[in-house]
């Protein structure tokens, strides 16, 4: 494979991220300005968790007497140095809190995505090779239903069935408290706790991918190069997997970029249901305690995660579609 100009591509895309980050910061600032009370009330937590002295100090530091643009610049400066402020409820810097919770969220998101991609592809290919069969019909019902089921409710019902009812899987958390030692035992323990939340989060995307793969496969079956493969003497399975499915992956990757934001939103709810100690669970705790500064920090940071994920998806697309010229236009 000859992939020229991959480095400039990454640099250029990184550069394009800057205005997006600026926009997200501006949105956050706007919410702060519009919030009832002044910025420091919001930042310091409302119910008097911070001492009056500290609040006075904060007001001075923020220059609330200064004009808005100056305040905004100040705010930008804070964000640029990754200073997201302090959570007076949890008595920790917001960034530190987020960083300790981020790995759990990333683990949940990537597992859910992996399940969705693998299972969705399988279902989609299966349906496409058997159009009109009972399996195809069952898939369309599954998709219809999945689109309507709220993820958090699905999680609750999964707990009812698999934890409370059958007792197969733990109902929440990430580890068993006081469980066995050893890295292997721990990985197994986390994996066991991961199954229900990851499958719950993946279900909707599984349906989306299954539908997408099915329709792209059907479209590809009529493509000229599939006919060429057949004329070469390739068997139906080879045609389906090597030729059609490989090309059906492309729209799937495009879809992925559209969904990274919604996947993060879904993770917030799933983590709340399963007490999964990630960003979403942190957000839930922040809601309960009205820790608005922490909540705004999570909003800013999760947007940044989405931006980075989209960057990765773009890179992935360049790698799997040789027609995309990293230097710019699609050839």
């Amino acid at each position, binding site marked *: 494979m000859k992939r020229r100009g991959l480095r400039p591509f990454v640099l250029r895309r990184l550069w394009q991220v800057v205005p997006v980050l600026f926009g997200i910061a501006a949105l956050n600032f706007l919410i702060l300005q519009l919030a009832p009370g002044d910025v420091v009330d919001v930042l310091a937590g409302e119910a008097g968790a911070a001492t009056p002295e500290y609040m006075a100090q904060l007001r001075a530091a923020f220059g609330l007497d200064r004009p808005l643009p100056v305040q905004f610049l100040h705010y930008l400066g804070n964000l640029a140095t990754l200073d997201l402020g302090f959570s007076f409820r949890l008595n920790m810097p917001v960034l530190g809190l987020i960083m300790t919770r981020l790995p759990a969220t990333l683990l949940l998101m990537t597992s859910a995505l992996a399940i969705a991609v693998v299972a969705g592809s399988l279902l989609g290919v299966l349906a496409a090779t058997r159009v009109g069969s009972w399996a195809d019909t069952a898939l369309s019902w599954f998709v219809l239903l999945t689109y*309507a089921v709220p993820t958090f409710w699905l999680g*609750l019902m999964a707990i009812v069935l698999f934890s409370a009812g059958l007792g197969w899987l733990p109902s929440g958390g990430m580890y068993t408290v006081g469980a066995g030692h050893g890295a292997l035992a721990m990985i197994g323990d986390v994996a066991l706790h991961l199954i229900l939340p990851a499958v719950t989060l993946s279900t909707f995307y599984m349906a989306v991918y299954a539908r997408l793969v099915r329709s792209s496969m059907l479209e590809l079956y009529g493509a000229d190069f599939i006919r060429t493969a057949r004329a070469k003497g390739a068997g139906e399975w080879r045609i389906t997997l090597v030729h059609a499915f490989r090309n059906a992956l492309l729209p799937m990757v495009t879809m992925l970029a559209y969904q990274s934001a919604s996947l993060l939103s879904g993770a917030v*709810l799933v983590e709340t249901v399963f007490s999964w100690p990630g960003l979403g669970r942190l957000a839930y705790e922040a*809601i309960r305690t009205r820790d608005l500064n922490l909540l705004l920090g999570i909003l800013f940071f999760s947007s940044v995660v989405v931006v980075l994920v*989209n960057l990765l998806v773009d890179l992935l697309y360049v790698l799997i579609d040789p027609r995309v010229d990293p230097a710019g236009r699609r050839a």
Partner: protein
Amino acid sequence: MSASAQPGLLWRLSVNRSAAGGAVLLALILALAIIGPLLWPGDPWEMAAPPMLWPGEDMANPLGTDVMGRDLAAGLVSGARVSLMIGLVSTLIAAGIGTLFGALGGFYGGSVDAVLMRVTELFQTVPSFVLAVVLVAVFRPSVATAVLAIGIVSWPATARLVRAQFLLLREREFVLAGETIGMGTPRLILTQILPNALPPVIAMSTLTIAHAIQTEAALSFLGLGDPNVMSWGTIIGGGREQLAEAWYVCGLPGIAVVVTVLAFNLLGEGLNDALNPHLQRR
């Protein structure tokens, strides 16, 4: 699509199976929301019977009671009204913002379009549910903030659709004709382009309602619902602690959400097929 296509529309909708199914489901839910309070009068917040009464145990409370002894049937009816209202109003807001942004960007193009599209992209990058959570939390949970927050996070898809429509219609003869006879821009947009751009927007808005209802349920599940209003999400959130002993408390309102969202999705898909006949499967 001109007015002459309208008589065909109802017919096309009635023969479309998913549209018909969605409309029937929706009629049932609407009927429940309207006549429900007559069947189960009383405040859904009030203790009406012994707590944790299973559905069917006592016909005075056909769907049982929750841990506080509140009647679930009354709660579900109240939830139906809340869900439909919040879904509709927030979608109106989203459709309004989306149409405005899409129309301006698509009509003027150039830098206006570029700026508006950047803003649209920004709203698609920020995780919409997290944004809705922040908005409701900062501005205090109430029906009004929920409606506004859901509206504010739901408009980008509509904006993109309207923009695409405007880009297409902008160059059509009847628009150019309107321009040459000296129609002003607002008049051109409102009387010539917008009516022709609307049908797919209506179909999409039906799907937006479905999503808004899900978002509302999720917000009130997290405790961000209006504290004075009993919605489906509120009941589910309240029933979590007793999930193992009384799963129906969470189960029933969830089924209500599923049925309602399904109804709007089916109707939306049917509308899509009926309004874009050329996109129909062969």
